[in-house]
């Protein structure tokens, strides 16, 4: 295998319940899947089905109620370096854009000058140079989201977990960042778990798409995307992709209707 240690991961029978005032909420129920080294897996599912919960478990930010997460590297959940791009960006209001992007590097102990130079190269890529010394409250939501993504990119983790990272971006910026994400993924052999609401995006980026259903959250279907990147605009392949998208769309529609009928 190229690159030495194996970076795959396996989730086995993951369950997560939250105690609340109105009793237990089962956010995840018996989630089992594995991701190979250097695989790009998209996750789609209706709102509230536990996507964020799943990523936080893998990032080691909360403990599963039962089941386990095994990293092929042999490291524990806390030792394994991951970077989570948070759904609500989670930038530090008291740090400038530059320091926010360099935060992961700072925690890894990189000297100030080096980490700032490195962070700056990322900031240049998304056209935020003139904002490097601004604070997050001076940025738009989409700009904050870009900074949140850069923080994870700059930290250069072996496992990248992204929770609807492109949600509030315009089509052009999305396109630029998708290309950048694919480039980073290709060049640095990362494992990426990518949560999105956008079926097109899930199919475009992923080697595989996990379709989740909610209440309680579990994996309803795994769909392999048979076409290799870059997706050539050959009509046969387009047809196949369209069929896959249509299939995912039908599942999600059913799931969303189900969740809307749920008494809450």
């Amino acid at each position, binding site marked *: 295998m190229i690159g030495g240690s194996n970076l795959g991961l396996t989730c086995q029978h993951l369950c997560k319940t939250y105690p609340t005032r109105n009793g237990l909420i089962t956010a995840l129920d018996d989630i089992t899947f594995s991701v190979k080294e250097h695989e790009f897996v998209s996750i789609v599912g209706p709102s509230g089905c536990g996507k964020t919960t799943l990523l936080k478990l893998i*990032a080691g930010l909360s403990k599963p109620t039962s089941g386990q997460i095994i990293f092929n590297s042999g490291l524990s959940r806390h030792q394994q370096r991951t*970077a989570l791009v*948070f759904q609500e960006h989670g930038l530090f209001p008291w740090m400038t854009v530059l320091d926010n992007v360099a*935060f992961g590097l700072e*925690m890894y102990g990189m000297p100030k000058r080096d980490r700032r130079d490195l962070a700056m190269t990322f900031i240049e890529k998304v056209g935020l140079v003139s904002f490097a010394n601004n*604070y997050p*409250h001076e940025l738009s939501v989409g700009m904050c989201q870009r900074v949140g993504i850069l923080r994870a990119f700059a*930290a250069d983790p072996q496992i990248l977990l992204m929770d609807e990272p492109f949600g509030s971006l315009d089509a*052009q910026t999305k396109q630029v960042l998708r290309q950048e994400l694919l480039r980073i993924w290709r060049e640095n052999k990362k494992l990426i778990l990518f949560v999105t609401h956008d079926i097109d995006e899930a199919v475009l980026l992923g080697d595989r798409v996990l379709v989740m259903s909610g209440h309680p959250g579990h994996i309803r279907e795994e769909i392999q995307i048979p076409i290799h990147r870059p997706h050539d605009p050959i009509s046969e392949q387009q047809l196949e992709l369209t069929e896959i998208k249509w299939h995912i769309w039908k599942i999600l529609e059913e799931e969303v209707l189900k969740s809307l009928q749920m008494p809450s």
Partner: protein
Amino acid sequence: MAYLEDTRRRSAEKLTNAQLKETPDRSSIRPEWWGTAIIIIAPLVIWEVLARSGKISSLFFPAPSVIFLTSIQLITSGKLSIHLGITLWRVFIGFFLGGISGLMLGLAMGWSRPLRMVIDPLIAAAHPVPKIAILPLIMIFFGIGESSKIVVIAVATFFPMLINTVTGVRQINPIHFEVAENYGASLNKILTRVILPGSLPMVLTGARLALNIALLLAIAVELVSAQEGLGAMIWLAWQTLRTEELYVSLFVTAALGMILNFLLQRITLYLVPWQTEQKI
């Protein structure tokens, strides 16, 4: 094509950035200040006229011009600066001791739930006690000298500092701790990069409250048990019916409060550049 889009957006961002950084012109005098000036000056003029014409007793209400001359005299003789200096010293030492301990315990309590559970009831019981009331008790422990005065001030500043710091730490969005944990932050880094800056706005609010309380307590303590300090000066002037001196010392006390507040507000703006709205 994508590059073109990118540069175009970049220049658009520069523009908004420049707008964001635009600050209001400070050199021009705001029109409402004229109103404030009139509200202050008009009564002074009326007072002067009434005092000089004998319509009001100049023993209790000496004319502003007389008060002004007295203040010059007090300044040149050095009497005022001695009293002012002593009060300032008490305020700062008391504020420093009480503030630092309130800050330390506040950070620890904000961080540790068990500690909070244990200490909270004690704070709830001790906080509402008017601190000047415990001066005699503190004198039993610390004697009637300088230290008991400073201890009272320190005790009074301790509480607002503590309570604001605990609140400041508690209101930090949990996501910031998650981000830090995700990148493997050490306890030291969590303290210096998340907890301290995250709670800083509230801590500074607490510091402002504490400083005002320190001044209040310093004057109160000096009124009841001191030979020196602004409070003592006020009390002595009252007892000997030197009302000009009474007014001067009252004015200096008020000015001191204003200056301290202004300074702390400036410090806050400097230390918390990420907060736009300036809370007053």
